[in-house]
């Protein structure tokens, strides 16, 4: 599913890399422990997290994630957005918490299993 569609349906605010909103999202992962995300997420994932510092971009770039969604309306640090722009990783912000975002995302990505 196209990232842009997910952003619209979940009312996500895009903070950088608008040009990559056409990215194809093939699955998702949620987590705030970077080692967990490094070990268990996959390329093409939309990554849902509460972390806002720039190391999330390093993880997303290494794992070739389609995007990062920061939950609970948290503001990504300026350095995070700068780095994400450089790496071409879209960062989107959700007003909802991690549980609600993941639930809605799951329904969108896997409607028959919802």
């Amino acid at each position, binding site marked *: 599913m196209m990232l842009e569609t997910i952003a619209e349906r979940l009312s996500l605010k895009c903070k950088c890399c608008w040009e990559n909103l056409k990215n194809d999202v093939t699955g998702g992962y949620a987590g705030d*422990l970077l*080692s967990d995300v*490094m*070990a268990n997420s996959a*390329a093409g994932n939309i990554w849902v997290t509460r972390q806002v510092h720039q*190391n999330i971009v*390093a993880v997303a*770039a*290494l*794992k070739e994630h389609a995007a990062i969604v920061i939950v609970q309306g948290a503001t990504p640090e300026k350095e995070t957005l700068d780095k994400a722009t450089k790496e071409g990783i879209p960062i989107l912000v959700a007003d909802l918490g991690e549980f609600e975002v993941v639930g809605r995302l799951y329904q969108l990505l896997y409607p028959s299993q919802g």
Partner: protein
Amino acid sequence: MSDTDYMRHLQGRYEVHGRDFVDAGLVSSQIKKGLKSQGIHEDIIRRIAVIAFEAEVNIISYATHGVISYYLLPDSIIFEAIDEGQGIEDIELALQEGYSTADDSIREMGFGAGMGLANIKKSSDIFEITSELGKGTRVKSTIMLNGK
């Protein structure tokens, strides 16, 4: 073949500085790009990306300085991280998932979950670690290419 014979196949060598969280991931990213340009299979690259990232974060978190090198051999890739730092008191314990000596400042950034060394070991075909308290730690990972 002697123990150090693989060193002839050096592909990249990078300095990593302790507490430099700003640049965490930079070396891993360069290694990943290097392996891609060599046409290495993406499954192998994914495993090395995990190994490199965890080793890099470990040096940044616990050492004063370190060097990360990787070697491209005909049948394998060898990854090596050697640091000068506090070292590991109990390697068996450090390898247990969930065990960590990270302080709060490290944990706040989402590191220090006690998964680093376990992730490196899991992603390696051969995993070797030696450490001397107060001196530093050496991690060596071998990933077999198996025709990939």
